[in-house]
């Protein structure tokens, strides 16, 4: 670790000195001071990078899944810390507020589906942090409350008792739907979990640093041409 930092410092120094030579502007004293600074700052970045892999981030994530007639949500900072007592607001597609509540100590909050529209769930954690997740209307559509299904099934048996074949297929369909529903719930949940992001990866971090040095290069180019 220490050796790699030193190497990095040297690397920065050499690369910097060569860039100065080509620009032909560096005095000896200026070259040393700047390269020192570059080395230190480079070491700081490396040091920070070592701690940030696996990346810790600072953002609020919220994800939600539907079970029966209830929407479950979970909110957390991407460092993994749950959002405790965060304000959750649920809006419909038109932006009307439908539900409001606060997360518990595990960052969870659940509510009964108020309407079958797109539900935009917004979490407001402290210090100006905000995250949101949208549950599409058709995700709610497939999961109407089980009681009413049974009632409908009962109704069907009463009214259409003349055609037993029809009833059977209807009932079978209901039963299959219910069974599928309960079987698919954990899958839906794990898909929701898969969709959650764990914060930026190494690609983004290194890419960002690359951009910054790219901008540096551009500045050199334009400032250099002026002179």
């Amino acid at each position, binding site marked *: 670790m220490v050796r790699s930092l030193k190497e990095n410092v040297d690397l920065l120094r050499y690369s910097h000195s060569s860039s100065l030579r080509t620009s032909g502007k560096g005095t000896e004293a200026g070259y040393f001071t700047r390269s020192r600074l570059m080395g230190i700052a480079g070491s700081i*970045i490396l040091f920070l990078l070592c701690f940030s892999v696996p990346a810790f*981030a600072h*953002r*609020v994530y919220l994800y939600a899944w539907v079970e029966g007639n209830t929407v479950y949500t979970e909110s957390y900072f991407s460092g993994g810390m749950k959002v405790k007592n965060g304000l959750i607001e649920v809006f419909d597609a038109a932006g009307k507020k439908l539900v409001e509540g606060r997360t518990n100590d595990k960052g969870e909050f659940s509510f009964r589906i108020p309407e079958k529209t797109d539900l935009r769930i917004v979490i407001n954690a*402290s*210090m*100006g942090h905000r995250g949101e997740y949208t549950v599409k209307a058709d995700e709610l559509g497939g999961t109407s409350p089980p009681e009413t299904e049974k009632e409908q099934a009962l109704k069907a048996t009463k009214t259409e008792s003349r055609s037993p074949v029809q009833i059977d297929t209807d009932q079978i369909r209901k039963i299959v739907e219910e069974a599928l529903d309960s079987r698919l719930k954990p899958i839906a949940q794990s898909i929701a979990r898969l969709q959650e992001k764990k914060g930026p990866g190494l690609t*983004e971090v290194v890419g*960002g640093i690359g951009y910054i040095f790219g901008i*540096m290069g551009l500045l050199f180019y334009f400032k250099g041409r002026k002179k």
Partner: protein
Amino acid sequence: MHISEGILSAPVLIGGAVIAAGGIGIGVKKLDYDRIPQVAVLSSAFFVASLVHVPIGPSSVHLILNGLLGLLLGWTAFPAIVIALFLQAVLFQFGGLTTLGVNTVTMALPAVFCYLVFRKGVMSNERWVSMVSSFLCGAGAVFVAGTLVALALMSTGKSFSAAAKVIVVAHIPVMAIEGIITTLCVRFLKKVKPEVLEVTHG
């Protein structure tokens, strides 16, 4: 400490953007050819610092390093921070593009402020004065940044004192760490090449 999108009202966002543009203007004017690499390296440091999660304290916080940036860059901390914040918004979805101006102001203004206030103390030949000033520069920049965030959040109807209390208390560990980082950096620079600090202030 990034303020997310969709929280602040338009006047605050525009006000923040205008102040940020002013700061960036001054910073770019003061940015001479020889200092470009320095600004880029410290911009990268700031960019990465936000990924370092500090697991102490009541809430989720991360390093900011704006005090160090201010001390080493002065006004050019503005362009350095705005670039890093832009990339954080685009790549990490920290903060947001509409809040870029406000976030730049809340982090870069304290950097410049602490640079102006503590520069003399940091340059002092008295070792203790220099160390204490460096610590205060690192910690103070975070403190002022927290206060500015609270000020910005006031427009959402939150009381300033409540928001400020939450933010400042959450950032106490960060302030301590950044104070120490800044002190160590200054001590190291003074030992190895004391001109560095003076040169960078030119």
